[in-house]
């Protein structure tokens, strides 16, 4: 019953490799961007705060598909030619960044004021307090929601197929058009997406345990 899937598996796996690459780039850069923005949002500069807050609120209110279309058409509109991969990748990085910024911001703000008072009373400077007191504790709080946003971002790379980026979902649709075996092909696609996401879930569980405070 799965002979059509078996025959087309190599083609699907080629698509999976592209999906994997896209995911690694989007999750890495999007998370780094978001963490930076989140830290900036907790500094005392009003201007920086309102820029980041505006960014977060704007992108939270737009579907990722619309952001991707905007990214895809924005460059030609200003006379630039970039590949669909770059346009879509950038759109997804910016989109993920907004969610990560919010996670980072709220994790930092949930560190009790007493922790900062204690560090200041020792004479610690702002940078040392951030690195040694705030971020280690905020990291532990942020890992479960960061994992969630990373997994969402990986799955959302499938939307890239809509603007003609060839990856796993696009490859699957090509095969289905040729063979009409939609059910078994998408069953295969499902398993591949799961296998990409599952190790990340495991890694997050592991790091959550490792970072817990009561060993």
């Amino acid at each position, binding site marked *: 019953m799965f002979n059509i899937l078996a025959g087309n598996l190599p083609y699907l796996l080629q698509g999976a490799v592209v999906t994997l690459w896209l995911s690694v780039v989007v999750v890495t850069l999007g998370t780094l961007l978001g963490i930076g923005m989140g830290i900036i949002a907790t500094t005392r500069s009003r201007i920086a705060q309102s820029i980041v807050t505006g960014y977060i609120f704007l992108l939270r209110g737009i579907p990722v598909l619309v952001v991707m279309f905007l990214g895809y058409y924005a460059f030609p509109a200003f006379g630039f030619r970039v590949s669909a991969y770059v346009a879509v990748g950038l759109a997804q990085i910016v989109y993920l960044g907004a969610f990560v910024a919010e996670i980072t911001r709220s994790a930092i703000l949930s560190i*009790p004021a*007493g*922790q900062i*008072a*204690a*560090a*200041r*009373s*020792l*004479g*610690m*400077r*702002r940078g*040392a307090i951030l690195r*040694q*007191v705030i971020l*280690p*504790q905020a990291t*532990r709080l942020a890992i479960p929601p960061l994992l969630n946003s990373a997994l969402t971002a990986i799955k959302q790379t499938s939307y890239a197929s809509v603007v003609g980026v060839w990856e796993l979902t696009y490859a699957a649709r090509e095969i289905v058009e040729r063979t009409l075996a939609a059910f078994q092909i998408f069953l295969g696609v499902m398993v591949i997406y799961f296998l990409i996401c599952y190790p990340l879930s495991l890694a997050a569980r592991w790091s959550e345990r490792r*970072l817990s*405070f*009561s*060993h």
Partner: protein
Amino acid sequence: MIEVRDLRKSYGTLEVLKGVSFSVEKGEVVVVLGPSGSGKSTLLRCINQLEDYQGGEIRIDGASVGYSAAAQGRNAHSEAVNSRLREQVGMVFQSFNLFPHRTAMDNVMMGPVYVRRVAKQEARELAGGLLAKVGLADKAHQYPAKLSGGQQQRVAIARALAMQPKVMLFDEVTSALDPELVGEVLRVIRQLAQEGMTMIIVTHEIHFARDVADRIIFMDDGVIVEQGAPERILSNASGPRLRLFLRRYQGDYLAS
């Protein structure tokens, strides 16, 4: 060592300190008593500039805290200047505020390593000695979550001492503890007093105040109502506000 002159502090329109003046000599132990909301904790937090203040002046060893006089009014010190000042002032909090992601040893090493830039090995020896001093040598590698409240508070004292402060501020350090754990923390503070550490202690333990204080300051409603030797303040309370306060803590008072 510490001079506070006409200190005024408000949160918005709420005036918390309404002109507080006193001084603390080197080696002196001053206990501040007063009902909740009288401004005791705020006073301590102003002394190491965890809170800013609106009027008056604080000096530690002659150096002005938080602000310097200017031609017109005053200029706020930079955060770097405030940090240097805080290095010389140890503070212990009601809620311990140990760093939960660090062991007892690492908590005590934080100041020396990240402020003084002392080598890790040297800091470890210093921290080990201080943990032994507060009776916790065997708990050095435990995380705070595994320690009792009394043990956590003793680690917090060791952490403050690791910066070799000129003065120690204690902000109701036994108020969050179960009664049977209070003694172990007070013993450590008493030992420091005997060693000649300059201290300002905010507490509700009147018995302890009588025992350890060179001088007692009684505050109410943002002002110092009375101050003097423990015997005079506690046994011959004159003013009505002080008498009311002492009556409220009568159980403890009679036990002394």
